[in-house]
């Protein structure tokens, strides 16, 4: 094959790449919401879930690791936060440590028992007042709603039964249809446990919710409740793509 010939073929492949770029929908300028002014303390590590499109820079150099909560939320910073504050960490490779995907959340609104927390001015997570996840927005495969009646009863002081408890997470699929994911769970009381947070050490009792998905995968949610039946720390499953989050109530 001559060099010219090869060049011709490469140009032909160039056409393929261009077609590909069209298929990927690029080339149009878009408008993006400018953040509304907010009075919420902003702190975060790396994003939890970005679209799986990579970034050009990351092809050539490894970005420095994002700061950990300990590096950002120093005692001085924490002393300045006087309003309710959540530290949410996404599990990566089966572990919450070191915390690289994390964010700080402040209260944005309340509807009945559900409090919506916002990170900066954009992404939100909603929890019951006790601390059970109800919804996320802006993280990719968000959970639209959760239905955790059995767990709510146990957290409100009911007995952790041996019977099966149903948990339903509703997600939005790629065609904007609600996709309900049902999990069958067993809730058990694991007794006293000490939780160490950046703002102190707390005596809690641990409630564990072990769930099976329809596909047979096991998911463990854990809730550390303080004396007021408030969840001081929890590990909660969000969706198949987002995995689990660890939620720590710092303030």
């Amino acid at each position, binding site marked *: 094959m001559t060099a010219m010939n090869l060049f011709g073929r490469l140009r032909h492949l160039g056409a393929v790449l261009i077609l590909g770029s069209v298929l990927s929908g690029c080339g149009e300028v878009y*408008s993006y919401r400018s953040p509304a002014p907010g009075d919420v303390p902003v702190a975060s590590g790396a994003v939890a879930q970005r*679209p799986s499109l990579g970034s050009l820079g990351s092809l050539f150099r490894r970005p420095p690791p994002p700061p950990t909560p300990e590096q950002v939320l120093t005692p001085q910073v924490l002393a300045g936060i006087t309003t309710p504050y959540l530290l949410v960490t996404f599990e990566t490779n089966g572990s919450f440590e070191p915390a690289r995907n994390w964010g700080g959340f402040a209260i944005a609104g309340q509807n009945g028992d559900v409090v919506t927390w916002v990170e900066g001015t954009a992404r939100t997570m909603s929890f019951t007042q006790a601390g059970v996840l109800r919804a996320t927005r802006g993280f990719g495969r968000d959970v639209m709603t959760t239905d955790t009646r059995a767990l709510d009863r146990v957290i409100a002081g009911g007995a952790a039964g041996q019977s099966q408890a149903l948990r339903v997470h509703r997600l939005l699929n790629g065609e904007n249809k609600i996709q309900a994911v049902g999990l069958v769970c067993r809730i058990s009381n694991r007794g006293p446990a000490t939780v160490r947070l950046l703002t102190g050490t707390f005596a809690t009792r641990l409630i564990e919710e072990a769930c099976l998905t329809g596909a047979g995968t096991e998911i463990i949610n854990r809730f550390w409740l303080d004396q007021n039946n408030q969840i001081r720390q929890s590990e909660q499953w969000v969706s198949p793509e987002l995995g689990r989050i660890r939620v720590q109530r710092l303030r």
Partner: protein
Amino acid sequence: MISQFLQVSWGYICKTGAACFAASPAARLGALSLVCASGLLGLLSQPVSAQDRAGTLSDQARLADRPHLSFFGTPGLMDMPTAGAMADADLALSAAYFGPTTRTNLAFQVSPRLTAAFRYVRTDRGPGRRDDFDRSFDLIYQIAREGTYRPAVAVGIRDFGGTGLQSAEYLAATKSFSGPRLGNVQVTAGLGWGRLASQGGQRNPLGVFSSAFETRPAADFGQGGSFEFDQLFRGDVAAFGGLAWSPNDRWTMMLEYSSDAYSRAVDDNVLDRRSSVNVGTSYKLSEAADVGLYYMYGSELGFRINYVLNPKVPPAASGVEPGPQPVMVRPARAAAPGLWDTAWVANPQTQGVLETAVLGVLSPEGLALEDLTVTATSARVALRNQRFGQSAQAVGRAARALTRALPPSVETFVIVLVEQGMPTTQVTIQRSDLEELEFAPDNAWQSYVRARIEDAGDQRNARRSIAAPKLTFSVTGYFNPSLFDPNEPVLYDAGLRFGARYEPLPGWALQASLRQPLVSNRDNTNRVSNSVLPFVRSEEDDYNRGNDPKLDELTLAHYFRPGRNLYGRVTAGYLETAFAGVSGEILWKPQGSRLALGVELNAVHQRQPGALFELGEGVYDNDAITGHASAYYDFENGFRAQVDVGRYLAEDWGGTFTLAREFDNGWEVGAYATFTDVSFDDFGEGSFDKGIFITIPLSWTLGQPSRAARTSVIQPILRDGGARVEVSDRLYDLVRQDSDPQLGDSWGRFWR
């Protein structure tokens, strides 16, 4: 030999002019193109995500389930097909090269069993001869799915309606076996006709039914593009087969016996066919991309790459846009009777105060307030959605925002969607439902059932436009390529596009779009039309050549509601790059109806290429009265059909048939064909106008809300028969996204 070539015309369409013309800082452009370029690279190099952290809950196609694609871009080994099928809606782009041929394939899994593929093949014809270019179209139907004992069975037709150079039919059966140590082994056996019987052909067993099956009539190329039904499954038949072994999810080794003689390549001395056995290996780089290396016909190395995406699987899942403003819950009336007082109704300053408050909560959501009427218990809010690809999300965001701006006694929200000044649909929502359902487990369904969705058509156009921008400008980069010209594989012009839009009154828009090419290689071809019809499209290249600015559009348009369920448009001026004139349209689209009907009438004169304003002279001195009656039907299964019957630009009469698979996230993959009273011979190359189109919403790619979408049309070189004038913002695309059933189909986004 006929050397057919293709022209891919790339059009940007926006679902609404408003969204397109929303001021877009040019500074973002550079960043965006970087994102796009890196996105592409990222897509190709994307690592396999930790496979479904919770099992198979995700709808991402699983690595192991994705079939190997042949050199023809459809499920297969190398040159031989298997009976496999891709996942429903998979769209596979692939390129395969070996010896004298390079194939570029685009395959779409139209339905779980039907695969369609479009292909562009470049063949080396030896020293001193020009490369041959050929396009072909395949249809494959999987007759039987694989069972415990039964193999999968598929029937395929290659080069359906093409020039016949690749023409072949086959019947293939594939059975897979797997075991813990074995991995997965797939065995395929098949029978081929036509080109797939050119090696080792035997007498056709179908001859027992009719002796006509025993001979394959010679291909009659004509102008190409006509369907040659009299060839199907005729002539000799040959057996082919092969094995594919996947020791793990990523690697596949293949061996096949090919019944393709590559007669012409052998005659041209560009292929030394020493063996009928091909071997190869392919590696899955990610859930989407494969590369393969092959040894073909005992003499040539082959290389193949493919990328598969699925419109049902957005890269950013349900999106990474900022969250909505939470519902602000009112205190109970008994707890705060003062807040529920309605004395404000009588206060003359109320309207101004509420307008400011509503503007303040809607603007951050990208919703422009057009009109506001508030009584003590209800509010009617007309708004223009400038951000959200799904109208349901715009309605949901507006409803939640209003809870933060309106006095507690206002219980009923009537949200009116406005497109180009036309009120389209009104959604009535009870505020107490928003408060009750914000976190209810089944809130998507409940809120849809409780909302009242109806035509907003008995109102006149919005009286005024409180927040909608009157004058907007845009500057964007553009890239306008035409692929597959035999002289130059990529013909393009690229540069800056300037847009301006002025709305003197609601429903009236003055709109201009000017393109300034900065780089162009369009002078590298100098094709001259050989059409016997007026040159209404065949000299299209003339309109893209040169570095002088091109005025693509300068129009005054009026949009109006003539009555209930009716929509109207009149556009006058320089309608498109090649035509100027007047265009009028009326659309009937009742709320909730799957059927819509429309009529359009245009009086146009062709424009002079290379000139900003002059009308055409000489061969461009063409004027035409064209018009169509159109029927649109939105099938429940996600397919959309459209039939347009009427008169075309070359004053020919006929009809256009369009069938598209439409996804509720805005994706569309479809095809169209136009048949008019122009004979196939007079039409010229391709026999009749036809094409494939793909619409990709930007929001799908980026995970950020946007109403912009990009439509790419792959069509044979433009000819003059069956040509229609292009007008911005035809009514059907403008209106249907706001009205049921489409509005309800995406109601899942109401709570986004």
